[in-house]
């Protein structure tokens, strides 16, 4: 733990060879937020077909995933795997999603943390919670307990739209102590799966801490070890041929098998702009996620900040790792309380002399993730509500809006 505390400043200087080599280390070079790149495809593009067919049918046809590969990997019969996946879905313990590299799609991914004043009446928090739950523009959101009360996120093209439309309606309420914007600069890991901005060649590696999966199988009664192995195998870094069964996808959809394979391979493996993955509904498994929100001293250069993010992302117990930009805070890390040595993680974080402050909170309610509603209690499990602010100026009252937003009012 000591070596981090005394780590010397890097040799990195603008224009130096070290800077150039640092730049090469990152799949996505540093860029602005909401950077629209040529080569992206719409979510209904033919290249997305394999994902779209599977996303729309896995609820009743789990065999859209490659049962030969799964059977070989987890050592269970195909029929048993199908039944297990069906049960896991019906228990609402798993959901199949796709994480897009939002920054290259032209959105900024803006998370924001909300802290309420001490002694805020529970009904005031509940009212805000309902507002966040029903605000379709919030694509990811959680109610929390601890150093802050809510952690939500939006993908938006124009930051003014976020400020005016999503934050303004409530941020000046007397019970709100602060709202801190945390725009994402690098997405390193989501739901145990390494993402586009992870260091080295770790893209799409699936990570769990030693013994975590076995422990998870013990602390709850919905998923057993073989179930978890199936999910682990699905999320594993394998070519798309192992992920989907393209024959079944073609059988379900009538679309061309090869075209679907070529399309999804290009997006996931070559362009690296989407990562399909299975997300565990940790709340259904009676797990709580601990969030560590880290603030570095402001004189820490960004190259070092990136290094720290990379170092922390090497800790497999963190199921989610993201780096912020232009914010009071710099890094967020998640780990499950029930299957992780949280004090050890905290001690590790505290060993960094560059860290000025760590805020901690546990998630107690989830609203949405990846634009997908997770509030089963309201009857909206996996209802995907995709809204964004494309072509909209929400600073102007009465301006044109997308239909879903209008319908929701």
């Amino acid at each position, binding site marked *: 733990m000591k070596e981090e505390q005394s780590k010397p400043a890097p040799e990195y200087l603008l224009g130096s060879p070290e800077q150039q080599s640092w730049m090469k280390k990152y799949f996505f070079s540093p860029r602005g937020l909401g950077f629209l790149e040529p080569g992206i495809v719409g979510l209904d593009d033919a290249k997305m077909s394999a994902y779209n067919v599977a996303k729309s049918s896995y609820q009743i046809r789990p065999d859209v995933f490659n049962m030969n590969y799964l059977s070989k990997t987890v050592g269970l019969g195909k029929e048993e795997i199908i039944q297990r996946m069906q049960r896991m879905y019906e228990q609402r313990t798993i959901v199949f999603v796709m994480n897009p590299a939002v920054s290259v799609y032209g959105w900024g991914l803006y998370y924001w943390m909300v802290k309420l004043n001490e002694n805020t009446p529970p009904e005031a928090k509940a009212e805000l919670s309902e507002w966040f739950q029903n605000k379709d523009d919030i694509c990811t959101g959680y109610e929390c307990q601890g150093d802050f009360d809510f952690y939500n996120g939006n993908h938006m093209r124009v930051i003014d739209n976020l400020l005016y439309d999503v934050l303004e309606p409530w941020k000046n309420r007397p019970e709100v102590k602060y709202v801190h914007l945390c725009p994402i600069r690098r997405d390193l890991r989501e739901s145990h799966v390494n993402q586009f901005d992870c260091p080295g060649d770790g893209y799409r590696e699936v990570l769990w801490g030693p013994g975590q999966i076995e422990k998870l199988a013990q602390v709850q009664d919905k998923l057993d070890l073989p179930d978890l192995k199936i999910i682990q195998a699905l999320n594993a870094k394998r070519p798309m041929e192992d992920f989907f069964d393209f024959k079944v996808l073609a059988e*379900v*959809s009538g679309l061309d098998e090869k075209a679907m394979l070529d399309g999804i391979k290009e997006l996931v493996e070559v362009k690296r702009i989407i990562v399909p993955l299975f997300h565990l509904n940790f709340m259904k498994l009676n797990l709580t996620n601990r969030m560590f929100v880290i603030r570095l001293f402001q004189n820490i250069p960004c190259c070092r900040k990136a290094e720290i993010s990379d170092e922390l992302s090497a800790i497999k117990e963190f199921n989610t790792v993201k780096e912020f930009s232009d914010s009071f805070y710099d890094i967020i890390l998640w780990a499950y309380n029930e299957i992780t040595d949280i004090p050890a993680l905290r001690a590790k974080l505290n060993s960094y002399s560059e860290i000025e402050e760590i805020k901690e909170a546990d998630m107690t309610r989830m609203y949405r993730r990846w634009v997908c509603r997770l509030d089963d209690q309201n009857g909206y499990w996996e209802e995907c509500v995709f809204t964004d602010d494309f072509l909209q100026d929400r600073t102007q009252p009465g301006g044109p809006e997308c239909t879903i937003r209008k319908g929701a009012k």
Partner: protein
Amino acid sequence: MKIDAPRKYVIDNLKHFLNPSSIAVVGASRYPAKVGYKVIQGLKDWGYRGEIYPVNPRADKVHGLTAYKTITDIPGPVDLVFVAVPAHLVKMTLEHAVAKKAKIVVIATSAFKEIGRGDLQDRLTQYCRDNKLPLFGPNLVGMGSPYLNFNCGFIPYLPIKGPVAMISQSGANLLAALGNSTTMHFGMSFFVGLGNKADVDFSELIEYGNTDPHTKSLAIYIEGLDSPTAFVKACTSVVPNKPIVVIKVGGSEIGVKAAFAHTASENEGTSDAFYDQLFEQCGVIRATTFQEFLDISLALGLQPELKGDCVAMITNGGGSGLLSCDHFERLGQPMQELSSISPDLGLRIRTYMPMFGSPLNPVDISGTASPVHYKGALRQAMRDPNVDMVYCSICPTAVTDVPGVVDVAIEMYEAYKPLGKPFVMECQGGAECLEAIIRLRNHGIPAYATPEQAVNAIVALRKYSKIKEKFSKKK
């Protein structure tokens, strides 16, 4: 896909299309702004009384109704399957519909032939044909009937009850007609959006319209005819009983491409002249503008055919009379002077006009005409055995009692309806004329806001009479 003639199993199953006892809505959504939600909302709001089964594997309940994972999980029988899922799920849905022995499937989903997936569309169509499951769509907006309180699709209006069956490839133009129905009282018997019409074709709905007791005329919006032989067969058998009006679009150079991109309609190698000839061959009346399409189908639905060329026009405005007689002539059906229609009619009508009025034809009873004058002139014209029809126009002046004239027109129409002569009205002016048009239409009188519209309608009534005569003889 092409058919050579209307298919019996399709026509037999069409009774489930507008009057199903149960509907599975595949892709039923819990979110109010999504199509899959609107379909169920529309069914409920407009008074559908059959069973509704939402199908959505992610939901337990939709609209307060139990949701099913697939069609095959539904406990009861399913007459109609309405599909509002993405294109990539349609194949599986059709397989489930066949397994469930559904009677009809309606696919609202887009993204088939119109975006280059013709092969997929054809394969799905063939699958339905192999299993004798009539398929509507894909890429359609919905269908319904005001007589059955049935509005199935994402359609914000239910038209008022009336005589016109509207069959449209275009959802947008169908919606325009439906909107017109609610505001202008264009009455419909049923309406159908056909979209890409991969399987069920115009011809089968034309046959269905022939058997529907509420349908008196058929209005058909065409972007492309895949099965002209079947179309001709169906029209030929129907026109002796009921008039058919078509509007055929996509004939311009860029329109050919636009029609393909819209509803995958193929017009390459055809010309407007080809369609003129085809429509002539099968006895349908072709409209050139959408307004004319609506106007003449309404007149043909409400009124009997015009059996002769002797049209008497009663107006209080010389201007509307002039616009009318010029337009009649342009359309090849010139008006005749009243004296040549019936030598004494002019004299008799003179009693109901001031000395500066004109009994020529148009009969100008002048701007000072009161309901009493209208009543007398209309009665004389209607009663005259040499007059084949009466065309009445109101041009409000400061002294015109428009509601009073409308009362008189309705009274005279009702009184002389047994004579079987058509009666058409034109009311040009402000809000009082709009109200007059709506009241007249509510009483079964085709009424229009301009002389040209009225004349188009009258000429169509005459055309239909000739068509009927010709095709009845053939039959």
